[in-house]
């Protein structure tokens, strides 16, 4: 996870060959000091993402998935969050860059789709004006050209009568159309990195299907890197190439979509899969929930943060309570942070978990 220190120091702002990946997040930590103590929302997260690929980040509320994406976008208000680690976007370290430098990257190099389009769009300005503004910041074009571009984008995301709708206000759009308009806005400058934070959670299932198709098509067209953040495992399975499962601010498991769904290794991932009723399988008599509730991030359990809720923590001779498991490779880039021995793990998966999923 941690690289040798000298590598960090050689000219972080230059575009040198820093890792192979387009987006390279290394040991990211985001802490919020509060009166009650330090909230460790993200506590050491690393991942890489290539162009044209999709990473899914899965976890429950409070697992640090949104905080991670907001740090990449540089959207934490100054002085509130303490951010450490590195985020390399095409070689440039965003953590050590100034706010102005990051602001110039937003829109063109990276863009974000938010969960709630009604609060992410300004209610006072027309949809068109908001897209035009974003486009004009990064492109020196006249208003007419920018307007034409905005209409094209609205058409591209499937909004009917885009030449009329461009002058509508956000409240005049339905939920699905607002989400499309926001996608149009996010894509208006062809960003290289697109972060979608729960893009379909507020939408109905038929509209969700349309939006997922849209994100997939647009990614193919623009060859962008996409991070999709969600708690819906169905949505991730649909879009993601790689999946990171997060728990209490850290990665519990990382692997390809096939790894996570067909050969999951972490008890938390097992719990998530067991909690979810499946429409494509025989109906199970009973769901298998994870006991307890997610921990407070001020007072994360010692050792493995998942140990109070884990059914297998007792198999590790107390190691789960005392030592934090590192995220280690189990083969072929499938990373797991768990103390279980390979035999115990295989046995638990084969006998307890797999037959019930």
């Amino acid at each position, binding site marked *: 996870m941690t690289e040798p220190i000298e590598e960090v120091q050689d000219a972080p702002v230059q575009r040198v060959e820093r890792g192979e990946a387009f987006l390279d997040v290394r040991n990211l930590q985001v802490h919020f000091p509060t009166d009650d103590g330090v909230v460790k929302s993200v506590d050491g997260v690393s991942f890489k993402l290539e162009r044209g690929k999709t990473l899914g980040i899965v976890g429950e509320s409070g697992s640090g998935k949104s905080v991670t994406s907001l740090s990449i976008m540089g959207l934490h208000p100054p002085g509130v969050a303490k951010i450490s680690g590195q985020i390399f976007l095409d070689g440039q370290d965003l953590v050590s860059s100034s706010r102005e430098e990051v602001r110039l990257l937003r829109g063109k190099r990276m863009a974000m789709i938010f969960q709630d389009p009604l609060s992410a769009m300004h209610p006072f300005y027309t949809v068109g004006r908001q897209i035009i503004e974003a486009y004009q910041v990064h492109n020196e074009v006249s208003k007419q050209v920018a307007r034409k571009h905005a209409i094209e984008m609205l058409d591209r995301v499937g909004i009917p009568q885009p030449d009329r709708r461009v002058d509508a206000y956000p409240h005049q759009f339905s939920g*699905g159309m607002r989400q499309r308009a926001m996608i149009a806005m996010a894509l208006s400058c062809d960003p290289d990195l697109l972060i979608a934070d729960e893009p379909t959670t507020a939408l109905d299932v038929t509209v969700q299907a349309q939006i997922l198709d849209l994100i997939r098509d647009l990614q193919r067209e623009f060859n962008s890197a996409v991070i999709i953040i969600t708690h819906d495992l169905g949505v991730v399975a649909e879009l993601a190439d790689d999946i990171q499962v997060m728990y209490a601010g850290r990665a519990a498991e990382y692997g390809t979509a096939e790894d996570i769904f067909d050969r999951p290794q972490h008890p938390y991932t097992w*719990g998530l*899969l067991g909690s979810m009723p499946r429409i494509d399988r025989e109906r199970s008599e009973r769901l298998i929930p994870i006991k307890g509730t997610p921990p407070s991030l001020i007072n994360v359990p010692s050792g493995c943060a998942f140990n109070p809720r884990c059914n297998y923590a007792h198999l590790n001779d107390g190691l789960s309570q005392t030592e934090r498991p590192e995220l280690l490779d189990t083969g072929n880039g499938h990373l797991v942070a768990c103390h279980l021995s390979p035999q115990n793990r295989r046995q638990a998966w084969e006998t307890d978990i797999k037959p019930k999923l």
Partner: protein
Amino acid sequence: MTTADTESTPVVPKIGEEILSVDGLVKHFPIRKGVLQRQVGAVQAVDGLTFNVTRGETLSLVGESGCGKTTTGRLLTRLLAPTSGKIVFEGRDISHLGEGRMRPLRRDVQMIFQDPYGSLNPRHTVGKIVGAPFRLQHVKTEHGVKRAVQELLELVGLSPEHYNRYPHEFSGGQRQRIGIARTLALRPKLIVADEPVSALDVSIQAQVVNLLEDLQEEFDLTYVMIAHDLSVVRHVSDRVAVMYLGKIVELADRVDLYEKPMHPYTVALLSAVPVPDTKRKGKQERIRLQGDVPSPINPPPACRFHTRCWKAQEICKTQEPPLVELKPGHQTACHFPENVEAPAAKADQ
């Protein structure tokens, strides 16, 4: 646990008999404009529902937002008054009962709300919230209200020590349990649950689903579940009613509906559910519905789904398909249903 049911139900209720029947239920919300507040139109939220609920079953209402499922739930619990139509609960017409006459019935019909943050008074302790039904209904409990409340808290998986705490001290899942404890206080017969798990995290959602199932078994509860998550609905329901723009388009047994859906809208809904199976990635045959649900202020004429239906023909625009039983226990309102076994079914249009 409590003695809330001391004087109620002298007759032993039987599983399988009808507990609730709804006939031609309509709710229009008027839209008023101008100085004189003249009515210029109406939101046709619910437009002619007919269905029965049998004792001990779980009937789910599913559909997209704006299809009228929540309004239906509020009509069944009489938090709203219907524009027309009949709601009969245990043989008694409750469609136009006044507030005072409705009050004794509130013991039997209760509601679980979607938002565990909005449905609990932040200034009241858990004890006061869960004990409120006893006070409002003047129900005497054997060992005092406090004891009854603590028993309820234990029943839903909370600890009796939570009695003096406030809602903000609890997580979403725990709050939902508090709401369920309050719902159960008077031992209702029918519970209308409006999206009881959709605000919760996946792992907590499973806990609450299991709790609801356990309680149903223990107290012979009847549920009308309102939900939009089709996987959860399949897990909990015995029968499912699919709604579109204020009407039921299909009503069937769970197995039938999920395996052989007949209405094109149901087929589309089911095909749109993202499946957590990487082998089916990109291969899943999906019916893309165009556009959004039309406005319920001005719904399309005849079959309301014809504007988005890929099978729509001329007749769909002119003649409304009635909700008919095409197979035993499987009602569908469509001129061209899918999965019809005998071709004869088409002849009777």
